[in-house]
């Protein structure tokens, strides 16, 4: 077919004993029109949305702190022909993404309406409730491949737990999503009631990058460029992984499963090696930890693959995968965003049949109980 790119993986899969279908752990649906979401909101919050809208810790209403790489950070070919923003048209999503790539399940990740960045926590919770209902009515009910997540902003912990309870009773959600950039690092005890409930319910905790906290996204401060900000997603993930492990969350909640979404995985080996060194040196500072930090990471945390690292030499990507662990990785595409990873071409290093089955399907199937 092409004289530029290696033969697609899926062609090999077709010849394999049984076809490998893909579980995509990061699919972004979008709201087509505000009216779609308002039907799931009490009048009081509908009026608030129309009158006041978002109030973020950014200077201007309705703006993001940075210009983006492309309109709505989307692939230029992902705008539905019927109008509306990328990710808002289920039929087009089927035609462009779910069907041609043979997606068995897609895990929905909603970022609309600055869902985790609202300074008005009650309004944030009202949006989260509406989005949680909208995911079922507009997506899961219409296409059983698409699985919803319970969005619960953790800074008002009581509201978060109430929403988790409400959705857990419905019983059709595969994970609980919290904000990656909350007011405090995620390991802090104020958030533990959420982790306790997630563990009791047997739902994994999803942490998807993005959002606008009150803190600069890097340890160096506010970036000047989108390229710099995009890279900061990995810094944020590394900081939160460190906080969760060192504060003792996996020690305290041994059955809690935590998934980092859209942070890639290239940064993990260095972060865990360093944590282990520090653990040896400063063990008396964190006596609540019973094991090396890397052991907690290898047993309690999972990482979606996109945006995948593309080292010049394939063998280096191979090493990264081995260091992180094939069992820890979950394929994700980030459809319809510009930094989308195509499952056929994203891994520029050979994978064995067993590895492929784990990364593209088996790990997610077990974790999300699909």
């Amino acid at each position: 077919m092409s004289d530029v790119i290696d033969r697609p993986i899926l062609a090999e899969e077709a010849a394999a004993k049984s076809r490998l279908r893909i579980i995509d752990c990061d699919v972004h649906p979008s709201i087509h029109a505000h009216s779609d979401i308002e039907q799931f909101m009490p009048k009081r919050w509908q009026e608030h949305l129309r009158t006041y809208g978002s109030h973020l810790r950014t200077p201007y209403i309705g703006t993001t702190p940075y210009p983006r790489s492309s309109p709505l950070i989307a692939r230029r070919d992902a705008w539905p022909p019927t109008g509306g923003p990328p990710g808002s048209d289920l039929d087009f999503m089927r035609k462009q993404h779910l069907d041609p790539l043979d997606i068995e399940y897609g895990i929905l990740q909603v970022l609309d309406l600055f869902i985790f960045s609202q300074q008005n926590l009650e309004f944030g919770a009202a949006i989260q409730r509406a989005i949680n209902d909208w995911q079922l009515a507009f997506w899961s009910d219409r296409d059983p491949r698409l699985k919803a997540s319970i969005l619960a902003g953790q800074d008002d912990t009581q509201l978060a737990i109430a929403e988790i309870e409400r959705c857990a009773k419905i019983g059709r959600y595969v994970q609980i999503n919290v904000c990656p950039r909350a007011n405090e690092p995620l390991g802090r005890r104020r958030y533990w009631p959420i982790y306790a409930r997630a563990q009791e319910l047997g739902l994994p905790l999803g942490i998807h990058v993005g959002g606008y906290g009150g803190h600069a996204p890097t340890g160096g401060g506010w970036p000047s460029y989108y390229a710099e900000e995009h890279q900061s997603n990995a810094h944020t993930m590394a900081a939160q992984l460190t906080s969760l492990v060192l504060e003792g969350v996996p020690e305290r909640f041994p059955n809690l499963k935590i998934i980092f979404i859209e942070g890639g995985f290239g940064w993990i080996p260095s972060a865990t090696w360093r944590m282990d060194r520090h653990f040896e040196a400063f063990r008396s500072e964190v006596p609540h930890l019973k094991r090396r930090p890397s052991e907690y990471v290898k047993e309690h945390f999972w990482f979606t693959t996109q945006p995948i690292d593309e080292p010049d030499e394939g063998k280096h990507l191979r090493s990264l995968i081995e260091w992180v662990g094939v069992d820890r990785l979950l394929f994700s595409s980030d459809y319809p965003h510009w930094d989308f990873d195509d499952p056929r071409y994203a891994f520029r290093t050979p994978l064995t049949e067993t590895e492929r089955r784990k990364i593209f399907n088996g790990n997610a199937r077990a974790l999300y109980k699909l």
Partner: protein
Amino acid sequence: MTRHIVARTSDIPPGGNKVFGVDGRDIVVFHVNGEFFALLNRCPHAGAPLEKAACVARLTSPEPGVYERSRVGELLRCAWHGWEFDMRNGQSWFDPKRVKIRSYPVSVESGEVLQKGPYVAETFPVHVEDSYVIIET
């Protein structure tokens, strides 16, 4: 070397493009400022269709704070990951030697010349009064 007549020059508006199936390949032809460029319709990075790419200018900065825009509309910015390529030769902007899109020679001929052949025109009769885009594969 086969010459294919793929379109009338008026079929591809300035700033636009059109995809043609030639010899089992999808080739995309861009029209920029009266010139035509033909490339394989597939980004070498992850296979995105180049027909959806943005046509942009080359932006260079000889020193901090000084910016120069040149060759407006002659660079492609891929629809997915934003890799930039030169339409004239398919070379990438960031690594011209290693990463490139296959490009094809294009010429524009008048119907009068074409009627003398040899060429391959599968789709339409050639009229003397029109001019045509020819791709060589």
